[in-house]
Structure formats: C-alpha cells, structure tokens
C-alpha cells in the first residue's frame, strides 16, 4: 500500500497527468495505444526548378548546423560498353581525385577534409551520385567546390593511373568471399552475358583512357540529366540564388541512352555447384523475378514477407533457423533492378552436412505458399508491419529528399507514397496465393551452392543422399578475375 502511494506522490509532484490514468499492463494484448495519424510529406512542396532545367528537392532543417547536398546523375554502369567494363569504378575513383580545370584533386580533397566535410562520388547501375556534407558555416565554399567538380571535372592522368593500379590490385580479391562469389555467379547464370553481369578485368581497366572519362562526363553531366537534393541548415531562397549563379553557364545537350536488351537466357534447372574449401555451403535458389513497376508488386511484398522476408516472423526463418538450428542467416527475397526483372531467391548458409536438408526445407516452403492459403495472423502481421512502419520512409529530410528524387528520376508516379498504404491494405489472402503461384516456379529453379563438394554432397542423417536429388548437378568453374578466363 505504502509503496503505491509513494509512486503516486512522485508523479503528482511532477505534475504528470499523462500515463497516470492507466496502470501497468501485464499482457501485450491488453495494451491500448492512443491514435496516431500520419500523412506522408508531399513531394510538390519540396520540388524546385533551378537554372537551365536543373531539378531539385530542397528542405530546410535547422536542427543541426549541417548541410547535405547530392546530385543524382542519369549515368550508370549499365551504359558502359563491355570492353570498357569497370569504367564506372574508375570514374568513382577519379571524378574528385582527378581535379577540375582550375584545381588539383589533392587541393580539393585537402580543403574539404580541413573543413571537416565529406565529398564522395559513386556510380551505380543507372545513376551516379556526387554527395557533399559540410558545416553550414562553410556552405558557400562547399557549393563552389561541389559545382566545380560536377561541372568541370578534368580527370588528370596521374589520378587515372593510380586508380587503375589500385583497382587491378583489388581484382585479386574477387574470388575470396564465398558470399561475393555466390552473388556474382548466380547473377551471371540468371542474366547471362549482359551489362548487368559484365565484370572488369585487368585488360578493360587498362584500356580506359582520360578521353573515355571525359567523354562520359560531357555526355551525361548536364543540368537536365541531374536531380539535386539539399537538406539542412540554410535559407532555401538564398541557396537557390547561389546555385543558379554557379550554374548559369552550364549548357544542356541531347542524350540518347544505349538500348539495353531485356532478353535473358533460359538456364537449365538443377544444381550449380562451385567448389570452395570451406565448412559451410552458401546457397541461393531461385530464378528471375519481377520489376517493381509491376502492379502485383505490393502483393509480392506481402507474400514474400510471410515466406521469408519478414525475418523471424517468416516461415523460412522459423523453420530453418528457429526449429532446426541449421543456420544463422536464411530467408527469401525479391530484389528489384530498375528497368529489368529482379531476382527471386531463397537463401541460406549452413554447415556442409546439412546443405541438402536446408535446401529441402526451403523448397517445401515454396510449395506450401503456392498451394495453401496463408493464415489470417500471418496476413495481419505482414500488412500491419508495412502500414505501421511506413513513416520510416521519411526518417530524415535527407532520406525524404532522396526518395522523392529517385521517384522522379525513375519515372514512377509522384503519388507513390500517398497511395502506398492503400495498395498494401488491398492485398488479400487470395491475392497472396495468386502471386505466389504466378511468380514462384519450383520446377524452373537453379540451386547454386558455394562449398566443399564431398561433405555437401554426402548429406547427413536428416537427409542423406547426393545433391542430384534436386536435379542435374552442374559444376561451375570460377574465372580468373585478372583475365576473365575460366580456371580449369
């Protein structure tokens, strides 16, 4: 009695009203949460047009004396011809280090570091991004540097030479990590000989010249092919004025993007084994998936959450990890590649003896989700997860601006976030089974394993017998990363 009074007293002293009306709940099902309404921010509010058609998403945020700026450029590795594979990596290495028309790269880097800033450039599949972070007191100087690099990159020869040497040295590591080998070879099997799978070699790196880098820069780096994002401690109107002055003389040009094939080879279903003397098998099993512009995208997300995407609440994790203790990391995923079907795969890494058993358990789950309706509780968890975690898409102004810029650059509807929750809510149990049947095809699956052949093929008491019980076994030879030639 005394104790309860004492606690009450403390709360009264503090004048806390909230939280006192209800007691401590014993069971989670008894919790009552106050309502919470959340509407996503509207991209239109942040969208701005700068000089020469440069588009931007800008948000002021004065909580810290920092500014973040990014230019997302419509250039990526997929636009590079096969004999220049690796050009994107070299560009990442040299855009800043190669300096500008008026400044050495080392001078730029030295200055940015002295200011405690960061400036980086990275090329991805269809876009690349130059990103700057500076204290707001250094914003003017930061903007000068940022646009000088973006507009006037000079790719000096010494930076190229050093970049080539370092990247070639790093090729030696290409076959070291079992996870890296698996991801690369699985992608190669599914997409075949395609820009998505072209890897650099010593020869392609050495063949790339200053002229190649400059050509890409002049071809792709112009205002209308770029979207800018800015967030942080600045005045939006002043920022726009300053940027407009910096880019006043920046010319546009016309650009025709290379046509990329959407034809992919039909591989033979079965087991694809890559030998590596390790004590586990690293496994991916699946086939090509869908594009994220597919109207079934939302239903596929919910279905995959239940199958193997929702970590511990998913079936594959529950069975393979929690019930059987076979693995630390397992599940299923649909990955998305802008403009191409992505990949569907189940995955697991398990000790060699249980490779076959783990594969069999995942295959069973693929069959089950295609043939039996999912449970109401599973639907509830999956749908609520997407609805209740939705505001996480806007966790910082920087992330929000980047999300909006990506929608626009990918040509997705600008009301994507506004309609997102309704589309998730519309997914039904029937729809889940429909998309499982439509997009998961166990009879067409490639099972790729990186591991030690003998113990993997021997199996265990749980499931003896060879891996050929899952189909024809193909042995895949790795390639020498320096030459790209198969290692016999």
């Amino acid at each position, binding site marked *: 009695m005394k*104790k309860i009074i004492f606690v009450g007293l403390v709360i009264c002293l503090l004048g806390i009203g909230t939280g006192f009306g209800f007691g401590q709940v*014993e069971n*989670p099902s008894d919790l009552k949460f106050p309502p919470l309404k959340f509407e996503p921010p509207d991209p239109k509010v942040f969208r701005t047009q700068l000089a020469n058609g440069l588009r931007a998403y800008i948000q002021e945020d004065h909580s810290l004396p920092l500014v973040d700026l990014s230019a997302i450029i419509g250039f990526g590795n997929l636009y590079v011809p096969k004999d220049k594979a690796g050009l994107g990596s070299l560009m990442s290495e040299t855009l800043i280090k190669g300096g500008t028309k008026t400044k050495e790269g080392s001078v730029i880097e030295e200055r940015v570091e002295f200011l405690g800033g960061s400036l980086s450039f990275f090329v991805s599949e269809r876009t690349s991004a130059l990103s700057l972070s500076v204290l707001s007191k250094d914003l003017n100087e930061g903007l000068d540097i940022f646009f000088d690099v973006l507009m006037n990159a000079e790719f000096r020869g010494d930076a190229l030479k050093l970049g080539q040497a370092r990247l070639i040295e790093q090729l*030696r590591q290409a076959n070291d990590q079992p996870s890296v080998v698996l991801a690369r070879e699985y992608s190669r099997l599914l997409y075949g000989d395609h820009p998505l799978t072209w890897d650099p070699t010593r020869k392609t790196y050495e063949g790339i010249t200053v002229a190649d880098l400059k050509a890409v820069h002049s071809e792709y780096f112009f205002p209308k092919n770029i979207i800018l994002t800015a967030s942080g401690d600045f005045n939006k109107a002043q920022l726009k004025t300053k940027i407009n002055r910096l880019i006043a003389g920046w010319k546009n040009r016309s650009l025709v993007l290379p046509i990329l094939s959407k034809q992919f080879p039909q591989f033979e279903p079965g087991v694809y084994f890559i030998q590596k003397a390790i004590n586990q098998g690293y496994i991916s099993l699946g086939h090509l998936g869908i594009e994220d512009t597919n109207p079934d995208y939302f239903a596929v997300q919910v279905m995959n959450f239940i199958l193997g995407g929702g970590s*511990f609440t998913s079936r594959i994790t529950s069975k393979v990890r929690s019930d059987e203790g076979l693995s630390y990391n397992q599940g299923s995923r649909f990955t998305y590649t802008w403009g191409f079907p992505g990949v569907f795969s189940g995955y697991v890494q398990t000790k060699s003896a249980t490779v076959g058993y783990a594969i069999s358990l995942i295959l069973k789950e693929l069959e089950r989700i295609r043939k039996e309706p999912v449970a109401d509780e599973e639907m509830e968890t999956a749908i609520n997860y997407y609805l209740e975690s939705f505001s996480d898409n*806007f966790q910082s102004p920087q992330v929000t601006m980047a999300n909006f810029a990506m929608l626009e650059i990918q040509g997705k509807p600008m009301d994507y976030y506004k309609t997102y929750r309704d589309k998730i809510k519309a997914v039904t149990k029937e729809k889940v089974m429909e998309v499982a049947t439509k997009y998961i095809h166990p009879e067409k699956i490639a099972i790729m394993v990186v591991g030690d052949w003998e113990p993997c093929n021997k199996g265990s008491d749980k499931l003896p017998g060879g891996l050929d019980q899952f189909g024809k076994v193909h042995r895949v030879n790795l390639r020498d990363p320096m030459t790209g030639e198969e290692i016999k």
Partner: protein
Amino acid sequence: MKRAFMAITVFLALTSIILAAEVTLNVKEHVLGNGMKILMLQKPGMPRVVCHVYYKVGSINERPGITGIAHLHEHMMFKGTKMMGVTDFEADAAIDRKIDELMDKIYREKYWKADGGDKEKIAQWQKDVDELVKDEKKYIIKDQLWELYMKNGGTGLNASTSNEVTGYYVTLPSNKVELQMLLESDRMMNAYFREFYSEKDVVMEERRLSENRPGFLFSEQVIAAFYAASPYRWQVIGWMDDLRRITKKDMEEFHNTYYVPNNAVVIYVGDIDFANIIAMAEKYFGRVPKGPDLEPIRTHEPAQHSEKRLYGEGPAPTSLQMMFHTPPDGHPDTAPLSVLADVLGSGAGGFRGRAGAGSGRLYKILVKEKEMAVTISAFSRPQWYVGAFQFNAVPRLDKGVTPEDLEKEIWAEVEKIKKDGVTPDEIQKARNRSEAMFLRSLQSPMGLASRVGRAELNRGWKALLQDLDDLKKVTNDDIKRVAAKYFVRDNSLTAVYIRKMGR
C-alpha cells in the same frame, strides 16, 4: 508476484545542455529507484521513437570456458519469458527440465570423458531429447516478441553484443513506446531460455560464417596474441569448444548477474514527451528488482616487455597490421592519440576498397607518391579497459612491395613525428573533422541513441562532449610525447599475412 517488489524511488530528473564549441546535446536523465537510468532526447519531425536498451555486459565479462556466452545470451533473450512465447508455462517448463537433465547427461558423457564417452548411450539420450523437443513445440509460440514488434511497425529491430555492451533495439511509432517498456522489462526479469540447444547450433553456424570470411581466423589469432591477459583477447563470438559446452545453468547464472536494472540504461530518441516516458518507465522498468552491485573487470593488460610478431597465410589479401597498446578511454593521452591517428591515416582506408579523400600523411606518401600501398589506414581505439593503436596496409604486389617494406615506411614516418611532431594545420584539421563527424553522428536518431547510450555506461554521456573539448587542448608537444611513449617495439605486435589460395 511481479508487483511485489518496489524499492524506494529515488527521483532525479534534470535537463542538461553542455556546450562544446557549437555542439550541444540536450539529454534528459531520470534514475529509477532500482538504479536503472532513463535517457531521453527529443527529435521532433516524424512520429517515431528509437527505443534502445543497453546492458553493461559483453565478452569482457566472460572467462575461459564460457567465452561467447554474452552473445549467445543476447540470442536467448528472443526465446521468450514466463509470459511470452508460451501457451502453458508450467507444462512447457516441465518438459524443458527433462530436456536439461538429459542434455546434462550427454554433456558429461561427451565432454567430461577423454574418449568422448559411450556413443550408444549418447545416441539414445539424444533420441529422447529429440522426442521431448517435438513434444514441447505445442506449447511454444514462435518468436512472439519479434512478431509483436513487427506487427506494431517496429523497425531497426535487432540486438548486438560487443566486448563491453549488449544492446536491444527497436524503433516504434510514437504512440507505441509502452509496448517496448512492457516487453523489455518483462525479458529483463522473466527471461526463460526455451530452445536453448538449437539456438546454440544457430550461434555455431554464425561462428562458421565468420570462419569462412577470409582473414577472420588470422585476425582472431592476432587479437589473442596481442592481449596476453585482458579478456579482450577472445572474440565476441567465442571459441567453438566453449560454444559447444556452455550449459543452461551457465546461461541462467549469467543472466541473473548482469541483466539487472542497476546494470542497464534505456534511451528514447524521437517525438516524445518526457513526463509521459518517465511515468511509463516508473511503472514498467521500476518493477524490476535491483541486483547486487557489479565489480569492474579485474584483469588489465600487463606491460608487454617484448616485441611480438605473427606470420600467417590464407585466402585473404596480403597485408600488414601493426598494433600498439595504448591507455583506455578517458586517459589524458586519448586526445593526442586520436589526433595522431587522423594526421597519419585520415581517409586512406576507404569505403568498399575505394580510396577515401586522401589527405592523411600515409596515404599521400605510400599510396600516392611512392605507389607502395593499395590502402593504408591508422586507427586509435580507446576501449573501456585497454586501448589499441593500429595500422592496416595492403601492399602493391604489382610493384613487388612486401608487407615488411610497408612496415619500414610506417616506422620511418612514426620516427619523424617523434622528432618533429605535426603541423598546426594538421592538428586543426583533426579537430574540425572530429567535431563535424560528431555532429553528423547526431543526424540519425539511431546513431544518436547508440552513442549516448553506450557512453553513459562507461564514463557517462557527458564524456562525449568532454572528449571533443579535450581535442581542442592538444599541442604538438603532446603529439611528440605520446608518439615516443607508445610507438616502441616492446609495446607492439606486427602481423604479416600472405595470400595463399585454398587451405
């Protein structure tokens, strides 16, 4: 039962604003009667709250025989409580006790006997265990805590164990913080370790994943050789032999010792109302009984008195590592060592193997001018009980450079610094970078929670600002002094690793 305990509530709530240059940190503190500390930071904007619980326990609290238990325990904390994850607690516990008895027999036979024991007996007991495990399933609700968090929009859902700290993380919609209070206080006091033996298998698979990461086995040996006595010598994942032999009883003892409110801090960052959080914390965490006081780690690292060298071969890139013992976090030499690491190694490691902005001395000389290294970096790591200063470098094999060549070059640079120190510009740059990096770490609510929460468990969160302030006072004489004091061969370990494909 659960409400029976209520210690005298010592109430303390203060808002602290401390300035280090323009850097401010607005943390509200509240201490419960049982000693548990509640930290709060408002970060308005989105209606979400980062909720992290940190316990002052990690692999340094282990001993030979139970290495890896802090991390295994972190896994077990997801396996339910007396309330969660079970339909009928008593019925489930009865089966669980039988499993434990059988497993105890198996362990004694298998691990206590030099010849591995009677295989037939073990097989029979294991069969009985398998039957009981099957039987128990009808009472188990799988991963109920995880599912509740997910269903309520939990993101960033995870837990992690380091040498010093174990953390449990979730980010929830701002109207659902009470769920975290209920679930976390419940598992602090009512944890029940179901499916213990299969979870040990999971952790052994996790260790195998590490073993298959090229270079892991070598760096495990490097750390073990670097520390002769300190419990930092084993990895958080632990030795495989210990993982196999750890018992349920070990686990319960570990839990009861360290998972007490006076050994924990909980931090909330986001769209919160302080009074509301405090009231809920009083109710939920306030009901957990205080535990006995905990003694700090006894064994510090003795002086080395001899140079150590280690050579290894394996399937990872040829490389050089040089390590030096330095004092722990909070020592007056920490700031000059941090400046020194920045001057020597800044930006030269690089993300995904790319060169960073290379304005550090070693990058300029060894990567750029002499073209001897692919990457080179320097770090100063002041941990809670022991510190380490480390150089990592990958040589240019195409130029015939060896790890030993790089070792000579690094020593030459270090000797120069002992004699002449560094430039005022370099010191200023290191300060600017530290301050800016600190500010950036405050941008993400999760990063903020992690930095403040972890710091609180060692020297208090205000130490973060103290450290920034200390950097401002570093002089060139300090740099020369610490270089001369710590960069000596008798205080070093040099590890040379050569790539050799296959095993």
